[in-house]
């Protein structure tokens, strides 16, 4: 009579276990450890520049915290949305 409920329960438990194991695995292997943190801070202190090197299409995207509206227009105003990543990485510091 309650076979289907059993299967449902088993599925629920399995998914929960998978989620739990996934999180544990990521916690162990993908978390920023202390040595990573030290290295990152050391690098940022040496170089002194903000923002990550994820998007390097243009200078105003690369260092968006230091750039402003004019650095966009130093190239061409119509190019504001030319670069794909400006769409994701908007909200410049002076806006």
């Amino acid at each position, binding site marked *: *009579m*309650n076979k*289907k*409920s059993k299967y*449902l329960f088993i*599925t*629920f438990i399995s*998914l*929960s276990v*998978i*989620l739990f194991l*996934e*999180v544990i695995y*990521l*916690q162990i292997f*993908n*978390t*920023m450890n202390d*040595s*990573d*943190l030290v*290295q*990152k*801070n*050391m*690098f*940022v202190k*040496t*170089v*002194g*520049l*903000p*923002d*990550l*090197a*994820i*998007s*390097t*299409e*243009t*200078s105003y*995207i*690369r*260092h*968006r*915290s*230091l750039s*402003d509206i*004019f*650095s966009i227009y130093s190239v061409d105003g119509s190019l504001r949305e030319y*670069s*794909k*990543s400006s*769409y*994701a*990485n*908007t*909200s*410049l*510091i002076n806006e």
Partner: protein
Amino acid sequence: MEVYENTLNLAMQIQVLSMNKYLIEYAINSILRQKSKNIFIFIVFTLLIFLLTSIFFITNSIKYELNSTVNSLPQIIVQNYKGGRHYDIEISKVDKILSISGVQESVARVWGYYYFENADVHFTLVGIDMFENQYKKSLTHLTQISSFDESSMYLGRGVKKLMYKNYYKNYFNFIKPNGTVKKIDIAGVFNSDIELESNDMIVMSKENLREIFALKENMATDIVVKVSNPNEIDTIALKIKEIIPTARVITNEDIKVSYEHLFNYKSGIFLALFIISLFTFFIIIYDKASGLSSEEKHEVGILKAIGWRVEDILQEKFYESFIISFFSYLLGVIFAFAFVYLFEAPLIRDIFIGYSNLKPSFSLSFIMDFQTLFLVFLLSVPIYIASIIIPSWRVATLDADEVIR
């Protein structure tokens, strides 16, 4: 009679709260009876939750990465502006700034972008005082090389890969503004642990950089300022603006604020994402909430006629909707974790990386953000449950006689 009814009422309410396995079984049967429709809803929901959660995970990790190093950035950065454009700053301004009380240190910086035409990329070049001990130690630690060379340069991994691809193995020829070439040897590559920060960077001596950019000895790109009392940063920033009216002063706080606004919900990707998600949600919910089909109504009528109370019907509907939405949520989140942190978010990462040829590996640090998970849960599960229960409640409170005839 009334007392009897009240006690019975209470007993019923307590019973309702406990899980009825037959109702759950009936709910499962109900879901399976409309297999194709429910599978479709399940898939759409899972995809939606997967997409939303993935984007949240990526932006959370990027923000986390940024915030973990923000306090190592300079306290104040002074840029020079002429006609609204960033220009080089005179080194003499360093002394002016030093004269402000509270300023501990004021250093001129040389850095900029070098366009490598062959690969159509911009490198970020940073000049440092190579002979300074602290930099020596840092660079050897960050690049894992045994000997330190002041005349050479240290590259981010992306730069090294790109140069290698363009046949530059041990050195690189920078083209100076006058057309001549400046050859600089490659001394080391930054560790992969700091790839997100350093991927497009080249660190070299200030002297070499000045030569490459043809930057005069009395000029610098900007000035960084260190203050003795961090509480005075804003005051000193104002004072700098007073003594150098053309200056644009960026404090560490400004950068923190800029990081906060990085994935602002008011613009760009989040706006588009929310609009699409909400639109899809509402289509599904409108379809559900606009009322039950005549078949479903008839079924509710039959159940009432054979003795099911309104609570029983609603409890069954709750189980039905909870099963679909909660399993979608679980599966969506499981996929999102794997997609972002194990597979580095293929396709989606291109939105963040853009067209650049200098792509870093998108290996983001994992952070457990319960707020995000809770938010996505709230946006999906209760809303779907409500969209099923509300029309069912409307039908269940009608006269059973009306519904079944």
